[in-house]
């Protein structure tokens, strides 16, 4: 079974401070990990995926297979980063592509 754990329901930081949203996973195969984000009054959307090794809006995430983690980081948080963030795990099963989501972390960046 695949499982995603986001230990923090709420995270509050000040503008300019570093931010780290934690994500741990459980999966017996080779995982593919993603971060999805939902801004206020907007749809849930993809932020980044580990296979792309990209930085989106200043965010990065590194897959650590030893610690089974995929934490999302940004060195200097901005107010517009305030949103709900979901870590997600895929079974990478070809056409049977299925995403399992964590419960989410609500990030608030204070001015």
């Amino acid at each position, binding site marked *: 079974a695949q499982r995603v754990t986001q230990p923090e329901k709420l995270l509050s930081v000040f503008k300019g401070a570093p931010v780290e949203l934690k994500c741990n996973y459980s999966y017996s195969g080779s995982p593919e990990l993603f971060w999805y984000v939902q801004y206020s009054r907007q749809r*849930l959307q993809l932020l980044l995926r580990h296979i792309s090794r990209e930085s989106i809006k200043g965010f990065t995430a590194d897959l650590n297979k030893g610690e089974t983690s995929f934490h999302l980081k940004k060195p200097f948080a901005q107010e517009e980063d305030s949103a709900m963030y979901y870590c997600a795990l895929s079974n990478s099963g070809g*056409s*049977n*592509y299925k*995403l399992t*989501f*964590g*419960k989410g972390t609500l990030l608030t960046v204070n001015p």
Partner: protein
Amino acid sequence: EAGVAQSPRYKIIEKRQSVAFWCNPISGHATLYWYQQILGQGPKLLIQFQNNGVVDDSQLPKDRFSAERLKGVDSTLKIQPAKLEDSAVYLCASSLGGVTGELFFGEGSRLTVL
């Protein structure tokens, strides 16, 4: 590019009544998903279609929930009879399929069961 369309946006019903939600995916997307998101939780997959065939419905409460995707395009999700615990946002998503990982979500249909 038009996004995933869902209707209705909001629905309030009494327990034991029935309700149906409709989803129109992005044109050309073969895979369609219905997720249930209860307040304070992440989205939970209910059913996944590949074209008009069901790929995964292992978490769909089949005694009361049903879904179909006729002609491999639009989809409907029905609940009959509804229970209080069905109060949630029902999210429809679509993707091209394969291992790209990007699901495109609709705005969701918020159901309140009284």
